[in-house]
């Protein structure tokens, strides 16, 4: 019997910020489907709630959990900012998983707590995830400077890199983009993009077993 690598992902897409994540998340799904050994289970829009996430994880036992959405120090949210995972409540659901949380602040308390209760690894942000965009679409030239590095974590994991290597690849992309915007002679890059990119670079965290892979 073939062994599949299983992904469970949340994709609420209920406001401008999470819609921008959703555009990029489609690339994750496309890349995953190109691999013959990956199964993706996704919760979108209103279906992104705690009950559905719990059932999906318990039923499919994913190796990788991708949480796209808003967050706080101890929680990540789904549709309409409903809590999906919260410290002291249901973080045990993520035991033995690799987690990528593209959400504000959850790398501060939720990430360490997940690792404490047995998650293999957690990559996320210990402060706000900031970005800038001009238009809500999948090819915005500003958004891609932020989301390219952020999503590199998941792209690398799908391609078989370890957690630590996926994190390093993401950090490298942040630095490449920072270099690009600082050297480019456009005020908007220097003034607006560079500080936000630097913020995301220094607050991205990689916790747990860096040698784990998906």
């Amino acid at each position, binding site marked *: 019997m073939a062994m599949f690598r299983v992904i469970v992902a949340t994709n609420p897409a*209920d*406001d*401008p*910020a*999470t819609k*921008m994540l959703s555009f990029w998340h489609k690339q994750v799904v496309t890349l995953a489907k190109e691999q013959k050994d990956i199964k993706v289970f996704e919760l979108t829009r209103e279906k992104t709630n705690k009950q559905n996430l719990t059932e999906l994880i318990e039923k499919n036992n994913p190796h990788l959990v991708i949480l796209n959405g*808003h*967050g*706080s120090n101890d929680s990540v*949210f789904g549709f309409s*900012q409903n809590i999906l995972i919260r410290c002291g409540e249901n973080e045990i659901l993520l035991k033995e998983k690799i987690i990528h949380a593209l959400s*504000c*602040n959850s790398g501060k308390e939720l990430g360490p707590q997940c690792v404490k209760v047995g998650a293999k690894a957690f990559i996320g942000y210990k402060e*706000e*995830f*900031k*970005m*800038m*965009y*001009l238009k809500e679409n999948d090819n915005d030239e*500003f958004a891609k400077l932020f989301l390219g590095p952020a999503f590199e974590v998941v792209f690398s994991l799908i391609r078989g890199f370890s957690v630590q290597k996926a994190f390093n690849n993401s950090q*490298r992309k942040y*630095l*490449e983009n*920072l*270099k690009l915007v*600082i050297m480019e002679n456009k*005020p*908007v890059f220097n*003034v*607006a993009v*560079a*500080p*936000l990119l*630097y*913020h995301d*670079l*220094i607050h991205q965290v990689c916790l747990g077993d860096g040698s784990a892979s998906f």
Partner: protein
Amino acid sequence: MEIIEQKNKTTKEKEKELVIARLNILFPEYHFTSGNGAKSFSRDEIINEIKKDSQVGKDFIKTDMVFLRALKDGSLLKRLNEVS
């Protein structure tokens, strides 16, 4: 104590002016996402948040100043040299 508070206030005001001046050279159509709220902010909305000393405004100033300090003290350049 009063003199120190006055000096700190002046520094904060200077930072505020610097960040607003930097934002003012952007086109107003640019949008920023910030924090856990579902909101995104236009350039002018961010400037208003800064002027009224809201948490969003304070966070924006902090982000800008951390970047500028890293640029000034060479720590950012050091990291950028990590990539060829």
